[in-house]
């Protein structure tokens, strides 16, 4: 009996970790993995919308390194942006949204939209993990 419970916990735990990882890599996919399709489409859609809007508004992605104009804060901004997972990595590798367009009136809004997309995806990653573990229903 105790062995069965331990094995079940192990299975649930592995599933939750995988769901959490998927949720970070591709926003919304963790929910889809857990069978929460509607939740995944709505919440994942919000992340894609914020990220896309951020790029369209002229925002740029910070790297995980020191930048002259932002100083040490660039690390923090970079970590916020990194929350978008594959969106951030693909954009960085593809050279999309890397140039600071400070002359555009909406560039700062764009930066905030991009960072908040990442931060919200961190929240969704934790939410997905909680759902996988069974802490939430």
């Amino acid at each position, binding site marked *: 009996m105790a062995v069965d419970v331990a094995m079940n916990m192990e299975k649930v735990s592995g599933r939750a970790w995988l769901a959490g990882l998927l949720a970070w890599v591709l926003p919304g996919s963790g929910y889809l993995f857990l069978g929460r399709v509607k*939740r995944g489409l*709505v*919440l994942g859609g*919000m992340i894609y*919308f*914020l990220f896309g*809007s951020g790029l369209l*508004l002229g925002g740029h992605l910070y790297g995980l390194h020191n930048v002259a104009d932002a100083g040490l804060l660039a690390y923090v901004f970079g970590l916020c942006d990194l929350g978008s997972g594959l969106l951030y990595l693909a954009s960085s590798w593809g050279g999309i949204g890397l140039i600071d367009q400070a002359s555009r*009136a*909406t560039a700062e*809004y764009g930066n*905030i*939209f991009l960072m*908040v997309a990442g931060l*919200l995806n961190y*929240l*969704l990653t934790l*939410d997905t993990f909680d759902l996988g573990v069974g802490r939430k*229903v």
Partner: protein
Amino acid sequence: MRHFLLMLVFALTVSIVFGVTGRETARTRFFYGGKIFCEFIGIGLLLGWLLYWLPL
């Protein structure tokens, strides 16, 4: 006007995410999300007017 529109879009998006993740039922999600949305807009307008009067 563009700035206010962006603030509305931002507040709406974030309040949807907070509403869905923060509450369990559709009704409580609606009210919790609505509360957060109103707080975003209200505090944004309040700070905007405060900064308007400050001689910066």
